[in-house]
């Protein structure tokens, strides 16, 4: 995994597991490669970094954005597309669960003294059940990688436990959706791949309007 060049000066002084962020990145100490830096993908990213205040709150705000995305997808997009059978059942159940994740992450960020990101507007390129489920698979599997990539950077063990509790659900969703569209429930084999923020934004960024 490539190391992202650190471009946000606010982050340089922040300690991660006893190292300054710059040395942490330079040493490549984190096997998961969850490196944070600003990208030019969307102004949203800089905004998220600016409001969240760094540290665990920043990471949770990134997760919150993804949860907002998934909740909106399952709750609103599903109705535009029109689903039936297990797809409809999953959209309802998973949407409710993502909504609970939104609430929990919002509360956690406030508890950390951070400011939760505002709910973004999304655009989902799905026109029917087939494309809806294909996109659901991308979102859920990306979510697993996002949490697994970010979690080792969390400073608080309590926050880590919460993140673990959430990512397990995303993995369950991912497996269920994959099975529904005849894909492997374990697309990464025995070990789920942690994703960098850049990789996550490559998948999710285009769906975020503002």
């Amino acid at each position, binding site marked *: 995994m490539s190391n992202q060049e650190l471009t946000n000066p606010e982050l340089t002084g922040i300690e991660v597991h006893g190292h300054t962020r710059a040395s942490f990145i330079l040493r490549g100490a984190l096997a998961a490669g969850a490196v944070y830096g600003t990208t030019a993908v969307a102004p949203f990213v800089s905004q998220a970094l600016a409001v969240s205040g760094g540290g665990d709150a920043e990471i949770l705000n990134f997760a919150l954005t993804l949860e907002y995305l998934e909740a909106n997808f399952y709750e609103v997009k599903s109705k535009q597309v029109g689903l039936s059978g297990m797809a409809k059942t999953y959209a309802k159940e998973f949407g409710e669960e993502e909504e609970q994740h939104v609430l929990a992450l919002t509360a956690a960020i406030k508890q950390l003294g951070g400011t939760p990101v505002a709910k973004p507007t999304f655009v989902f390129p799905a026109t029917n059940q087939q494309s809806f489920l294909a996109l659901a698979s991308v979102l859920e599997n990306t979510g697993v990688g996002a949490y697994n990539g970010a979690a080792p950077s969390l400073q608080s063990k309590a926050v880590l436990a919460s993140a673990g509790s959430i990512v397990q659900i995303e993995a369950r969703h991912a*497996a269920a959706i994959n099975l529904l569209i005849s894909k492997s429930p374990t697309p990464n084999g025995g*070990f789920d791949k942690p994703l960098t923020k850049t990789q996550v934004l490559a998948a999710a960024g285009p769906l975020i309007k503002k």
Partner: protein
Amino acid sequence: MPVETGTENQAPQREAPQRESQAPQPAGIVERLVRDDSDRKRFLKMAGSAGAASFGAFVLAACGSSKSSTTATSASAPASTATTSSSSASTGDIGILNYALTLEYLETEFYSKVIAAKLFSGAVGALLEDFGAQEASHVAALKAAVIQLGGTPASKPEGKFPITTAAATAELAYTVENLGASAYLGQAALIQSPQVLASALAIHTVEARHAATLGTLVKKSVTPDGAFAKPADMSTVLAAVKPFLA
């Protein structure tokens, strides 16, 4: 198993190990960590020693039972001095890795028996073969991780699994995988090394995927805990797997 006197549980602890144990209601994070820490220390005393010949004794030590049979205790030679060359952080992680390794050994054996019984064919059979191979890869990875940290990998326990009908076996698989997922989740906050944590997280979500898959097979919920997966602590998990130890 000692009856827990912690204040976080409302219901009295059952003394007999449960075959299909649900994860307990989450205790406060501090109580859970304290309780897990003492279990973990007992566990790693056995895990780190080359003399942990009997997994039965190993489990008893981890659960803190004072009623271990003489056969069991004489078969094992628990070293009261854990490996001194490792840092305390490594020692803790070694204990957790060996705990996970033990569970993965059991899961691997379970899938081997299921596949050998030829209860499933077609797409389902192929999925279960995949899962078995993945559990075996977890065994290999965890063994390597323990060795890398300077520890001694836990020995392979002998398991016994009731493999009867396809339906009953699928139900058992669902139980086992849900337990495995909750076991990893229960340890995440206790792992010290970021690299070990990254590995544990990578395995944790795969167990969850297995559990969800089995859920679709047995027509049970893919998210039996709802929106937030419940962690299970070491003593709960070890009690739950005890019936599967020969």
